[in-house]
């Protein structure tokens, strides 16, 4: 249990967060933290509250109880765009790219919070604005080559294959230069080869870009393969937390997944 003042090097620290929908406690008094440059996993059976917890972190839902801190700064209750500004970027369970825009534009939008050009700048295009745009493009291209999509920068994002779209979403989130990257079921719908590539990509993001990553995943091979620490949710409550090994042996987790009451 983390203390109320969380000066503890955690990137993200959620303190007794709850979220009710009417009478339903989708997330119930959950404590959760992520350390610097960690890859953490969040698992649980369907309807366990994983995505709700995610949405609480990103501001899509407001917590009905508890606090969320991003590097000591309270973010619970902020709007999604403000939270992104503070340093959390995400991907979506059901891919949400800007379908009608080019691959490059998608990544450029990811960099929205890291650029400043406003209305006047856009119209006047002062040297500073031009420079910013040039740099943003350079960064976007480097991110695209990082995820292996540089050849497709001018395609419409809707014309990409499924696996490519997943990778593009990750590149787009990275463009926000987040302190914490949230991946919502990144391997869903991928074939084994694509899954392998994805796992490598996630490791590289952490190793080469020094990012902190939290992922929700159903594919146990992926979660167990890359996560250093895993939290398990069931019926909105955190029922276990630990290394992949510990989780695999945990009675409560086994029961939750097998549907036997503990």
């Amino acid at each position, binding site marked *: 249990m983390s203390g109320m003042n969380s000066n503890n090097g955690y990137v993200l620290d959620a303190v007794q967060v709850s979220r009710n929908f009417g009478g339903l406690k989708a997330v119930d008094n959950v404590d959760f933290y992520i350390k610097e440059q960690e890859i953490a996993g969040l698992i649980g059976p369907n309807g366990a509250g994983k995505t709700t917890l995610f949405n609480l972190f990103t501001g899509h839902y407001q917590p009905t109880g508890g606090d969320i801190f991003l590097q000591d700064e309270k973010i619970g209750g902020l709007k999604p765009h403000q939270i992104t500004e503070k340093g959390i970027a995400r991907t*979506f369970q059901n891919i949400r790219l800007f379908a009608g825009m080019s691959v490059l534009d998608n990544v*450029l939008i990811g960099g929205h919070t890291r650029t400043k050009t406003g209305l006047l700048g856009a119209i006047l295009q002062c040297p500073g604005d031009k420079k910013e745009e040039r740099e943003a493009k350079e960064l976007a291209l480097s991110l695209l080559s990082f995820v292996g999509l540089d050849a497709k920068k001018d395609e419409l994002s809707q014309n990409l294959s499924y696996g490519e779209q997943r990778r593009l979403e990750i590149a787009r989130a990275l463009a926000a230069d987040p302190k914490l990257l949230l991946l919502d079921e990144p391997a869903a719908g991928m074939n084994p080869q694509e899954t392998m590539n994805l796992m490598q990509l996630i490791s590289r993001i952490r190793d080469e870009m020094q990012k902190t990553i939290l992922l929700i995943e159903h594919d146990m091979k992926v979660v167990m393969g890359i996560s250093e620490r895993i939290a398990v949710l069931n019926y909105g409550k955190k029922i276990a937390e630990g290394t992949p090994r510990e989780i695999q042996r945990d009675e409560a987790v086994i029961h939750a997944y097998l549907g036997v009451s503990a």
Partner: protein
Amino acid sequence: MFSAYYLQIIILVGINIIMATSLNLITGFTGQLSIGHAAFMSIGAYAAALATLKLGLPFFGSLFFGALLAAFFGVLIGVPTLKLKGDYLAIATLGFGEIVRIVFLNLKITGGAVGLRGVPKNTTILWVIVAAILTIFVLNRILKSRVGRALVAVREDETAAESMGINTTYYKILAFGVGAFFAGLGGGLFSHYFQYIHPNSFGFLRSIEHLCMVVLGGLGNIWGSIIGAAALTAIPEFLRASADYRQLFYGAILVLMMRIRPEGIISGKKSRKIPPGKTSAWRGKNKFLKATR
């Protein structure tokens, strides 16, 4: 070379280009359906006319004043209504448009139901061309920039845009403000061309006409709006030859054009490679751009 009649039509085409491209910014690029563009036009038209008549501002100053006031109202209407989505926003803008028209119909200073007379004829073909080019230029620059990408992102997927750190409310208001600014500019040119203005030319039918230009030309495409504006200004004049059947044909042409090219005359859909900031409007998550199935 050109008779005054063609000159007049070209001037109207120019003004309508300003109207259509600025509405396209709101509806085509930002994805906010607006059926009240004529209201901003009328605010610009009256404000510019009154600035000339009562304040004695020079023509350029009046135009700017009218545009600025229209932008102000664009933001003013934008702030409360932009949490509305899709058709609800459309109907709110329609209501706003009717309110503005009725207010102008009853105000003393605007001449009320008698209309405003004696506006000096300052609008020339040159002014219109300059204003239209300026509008296209500015809109193009906005659309090709970070701001334009944010606007299109709002259209494509509001939730994802929000997650990318885009303050969607701010950008929607911005689109309304900029769109209204140019609509006001168009209105100022309009009143200084006809020398007379009356609210009944700014009803919801005119807003619908602007919308038709945008959709016919191709949503989310500036060049499309230019063609749409030219076509829908010229077609009714062409149809004068058909006398009493004119409006009948006009209606039929709208239906047929939509059947032949439902995506508009120009759309980014076909081209696989598209320049930054220019996109097709058809696959977004925005409701009213989706097919009815």
